[in-house]
């Protein structure tokens, strides 16, 4: 099956798994870095739409 070929190719490949680890952790690092900077900036006027945690 055509989709099945794609899936089986994904699952029978041999690496490099490090791509997954680096991508995930790297993405997280970037997001966290930006978030900390955003928190510390804290003096810009608030956006109109607020995501309120309910």
């Amino acid at each position: 099956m055509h989709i099945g070929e794609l899936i089986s190719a994904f699952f029978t490949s041999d690496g490099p798994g490090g791509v997954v680890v680096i991508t995930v952790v790297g993405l997280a690092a970037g997001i966290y870095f930006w978030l900390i900077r955003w928190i510390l900036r804290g003096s810009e006027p608030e956006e109109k739409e607020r995501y309120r945690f309910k």
Partner: protein
Amino acid sequence: MLAIDAKDKEKIVMPLFRTSRAFIALVSALGTLALIGVAAYARQLYLGLGVTNMDRPVYWSTYMVNFIFFIGISHAGTLISAILRVTGAEWRRPITRVAEAITVFALMIGTLQIIIDMGRPDRLAFTILNGRLQSPIIWDIVSVTVYFLSSITYLYLPLMPDAAILRDNCPPDAPAWQVKMYTLLALGWRGNRAQWVRLEKGIAFLAVFIIPVAISVHSIISWILATTVQPGWHSTIFGPYFVIGAIFSGIGALFLAMTGIRKALGLEGYIGLRQYRNLGLLFLTMNALWFYFTYAENLGIAAGQQPEEFVVLAAKLWGEFAPTFWLMILMMVAAFWILVVPKLLPASVERVAVFQPRVAFASVGAAVILFALVSLSPRTPALAALSTANSLTLAWAAIIALLIFAALGVTFWLKAHPVASATIAGGIVLVGMWLERWNIILPTVTHPRLIPYAAYFPSLTEGLVTLGSLALFVMMFVVFFKFFPAVSIWEVAEGRVIEAAQSKNIMPAPEPSKTGLLRPRKFKL
């Protein structure tokens, strides 16, 4: 003489003494469907189970799916009334009676399905006369019976003060038999302090008791399947999986019932957005957990690649059960989307083209056309070009993209209609969970351990009986709320008193410490 608020009296008590034409029409329609189901069952009883399509090895099919489905829905009552009461969630008060009623009637209809499934119903007596203690079916009978009795009690106890209120607040032209019924059910309730204290204790005890009973009910039902060695059934995850699924479908049923009652009786002042919002959060949690359990189970089978197990999974993923399996997944994803995405999108993007409803319609239309082409392509020479692997992949990707566009297009309509979106999500989940039960039972019975293959398609009898059972369930529900208040009058009144008191509440200071504060000394390392 128990007095109630005039608004409560107008909204909750008065409708019980007025019979509208719509009510009669609804009950007649439902009654007709139920009678058709009864007729189909009578025919099955007379001619034998051969009129269904059940055969060896497919000895459990539609009726068993219905059984698990209805018992699953019954968990609505336990969740809302009992767990929310134990955790002190005040917002549950307006919906407890609807939830408890769903529980009782779903249990009745669910147990009925088993009896319908039997060619010789009189053999039910064997379970009592000759039942072996180590049989999961015996545990099932015990736990469902206990749960049923507990649920009826749990429905009746909060109903008692309400029956007393009705007894004392009937309009002068109320029929005598109705007043007599309320008087009987009130059991002489006087509403003095001693009685209230005992009632609260009783309800609190029952709430704590009924939670493990409910969990055991659906776990034991799942263990009827899991303690066999059939591939696809013999999985340790079934216990929690079924309980989560039951609570999930219960919340879906509750959404539908809540909205129906609210609309029909004009109870917007009682069942408000707060109930929908909080139930929606629970719904999303259960949805996520359901996906987690489904994924955990199927991933294990896929990775294990054991020959008999994998055949069952393959039948679901790309075999003859692929349509029902992927439809179920689509329903659950849609239900999740409906309740989450409208909350996440800010109002400012409403002008963007993709969020217009006409885009949604166009996308759905295009997706349907593409889907039709893809389904027809292997059989039609003209569309042969479409059936190559590459173009099929592209077509499926396009269909998924179009569906996402369609979903985005309706987002703002959903955002503007929270009640409707919750109800739609609830309905979708009910269909999805019925399909889920189907996908658990049927692939295994058609691909059992020792038989290469079997085929099954439900017969007319089973379809009519299923329809009749659903109609009977809704009919019992509707008739019940014709005679009993849809909202628990005293619980809602109690909630108002508590809210008023809490608004004047001041946070108490923490306990004083017995030791004095340490004097901070010079810093030394």
